[in-house]
């Protein structure tokens, strides 16, 4: 069930350039299940900034009653979030959306996880849950530059992990697709989250394969009511899907990218 709660900050730390790892505790954690789901966070107590911010679940810990999100400081809302200290509360709505389908990966099969920048976080919970199901996980994580890299070791705990940076300052030089090609990485199912050009490249590269993509779109409500976040369905003028409530994860081909 979706709920709203003032969750308590357990910890917050800077893990890369302008990138923060925020751990929250509260009863809402027990509702969180699927990797790829997100929470909608209200950063200010007042009307500025007004809207909630969609942030993906990166790590769900039912036992501790904690969840972790990783976010990059971009504008006003995330800037306010960086001020939060342990013991402070954060107004959270969630969990929202439909995440990555675990069942698409056959036990013993191979899953390729491809993340770009701030699209990396939801793949961490995915890697964890896939590994637990006996799926072989290979991760390819792309960042702009060395200072932006995070969670390389954390991913490595679940399987082979490649890092690429645009400027070559860490790992391979180039894009995630270059790494997949160079290493001839094989998979039974591919899961990806990151900038749209990256998602498009993956969808085009692997047509007719089981490829699942997590999309981003500017949101109003986050629950399907405002129609801010729709995308077209191929072959129709009026058919649509909502990123917030039908997604954010779609099978490649399901919606127009």
């Amino acid at each position: 069930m979706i709920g709203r709660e003032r969750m308590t900050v357990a910890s917050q730390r800077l893990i890369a350039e302008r990138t923060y790892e925020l751990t929250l505790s509260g009863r809402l954690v027990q509702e969180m299940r699927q990797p790829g789901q997100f929470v909608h966070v209200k950063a200010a107590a007042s009307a500025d900034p007004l809207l909630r911010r969609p942030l993906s679940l990166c790590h769900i810990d039912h036992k501790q009653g904690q969840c972790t999100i990783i976010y990059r400081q971009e504008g006003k809302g995330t800037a306010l979030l960086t001020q939060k200290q342990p013991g402070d509360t954060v107004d959270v709505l969630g969990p929202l959306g439909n995440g990555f389908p675990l069942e698409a990966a056959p036990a013993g099969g191979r899953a390729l996880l491809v993340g770009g920048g701030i699209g990396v976080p939801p793949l961490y919970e995915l890697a964890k849950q896939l590994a637990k199901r006996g799926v072989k996980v290979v991760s390819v994580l792309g960042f702009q530059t060395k200072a932006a890299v995070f969670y390389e070791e954390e991913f490595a705990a679940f399987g082979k992990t490649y890092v690429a940076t645009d400027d070559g300052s860490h790992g391979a030089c180039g894009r995630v697709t270059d790494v997949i090609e160079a290493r001839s990485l094989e998979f039974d199912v591919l899961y990806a989250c990151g900038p749209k050009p990256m998602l498009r490249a993956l969808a085009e590269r692997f047509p007719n394969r089981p490829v699942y993509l997590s999309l981003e779109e500017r949101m109003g409500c986050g629950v399907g009511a405002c129609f801010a976040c729709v995308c077209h369905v191929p072959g129709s003028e009026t058919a649509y899907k909502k990123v917030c409530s039908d997604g954010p994860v779609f099978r490649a081909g399901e919606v127009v990218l």
Partner: protein
Amino acid sequence: MNRLAVELPGLSLKNPIMPASGCFGFGREYAQFYDLSVLGAIMIKATTKEPRFGNPTPRVAETPGGMLNAIGLQNPGLDKMLEEELPWLEQFDVPIIANIAGSTVEEYVEVAEAISKAPNVHALELNISCPNVKKGGIAFGTVPDVAAELTRLVKEVSAVPVYVKLSPNVTDIVAMAKAIEQAGADGLTMINTLVGMRIDVKTGRPILANGTGGLSGPAVKPIAIRMIYEVSQAVSIPIIGMGGIQTAEDVLEFFYAGASAVAVGTANFVDPFVCPTIIADLPALLDELGIDRISECIGRSWKTGAHAVHCRA
């Protein structure tokens, strides 16, 4: 005695709080959060004759204290509304106000006639002021004669009372309101969104794919209050007020200005529980201010002889 009850043409409301059109879908999403029967009414998303996809994304952008939207009246069209959405809403004990839009007079009339016959539709809300539809749309809402003529034609065919939604993007809102009243409208709803824009500093381009969008949220509240204050003194039909409402205090401010009921839009996105929270908060606020019934508050800010509210707090 129900202190929150208000009576409006076609609408006997158990309380004066309703979600605003376009901010509540057709109720399905919020039915996950609470029983929709607690609401005074529901203003459902605009219906046009044919299904509409609306504008390209991004469709929303945040602004200080507000947001811009350019949804572009996305909706499944009249037939699906009659066959699926409205019947689904019948499970709740709540009157529906059907918001209708069109790009021609004929479209308005056709949609109005059909949708006004649905059993749970108690009133129509004529959206003559959506700033996000390029064809015709805006002219209906800014020229008194055109708005009046449309009102008259819709009134002729409607089986239920007709409320007309006013655009704030006008020089003289009182002239609009009077023309619409004279044309036979049963009530007014106001305000729709103000036309605005945001430009992305990184790209140098408007954030909304549509360029401009409609501004809503707390930022516009003082404009809504002013317009309701002016219009309520100039017409004798009731006003359903909206624009930035977030709390029970805001609701009273709208009543004092001259509204007889209110709608809550953008605030649903911030807090999906905002409508039931306001409904729950109102009685204690009335107590604090020594008010018996919320209907006493209508227009108190300008009524001559009205006593200033005695503050017991």
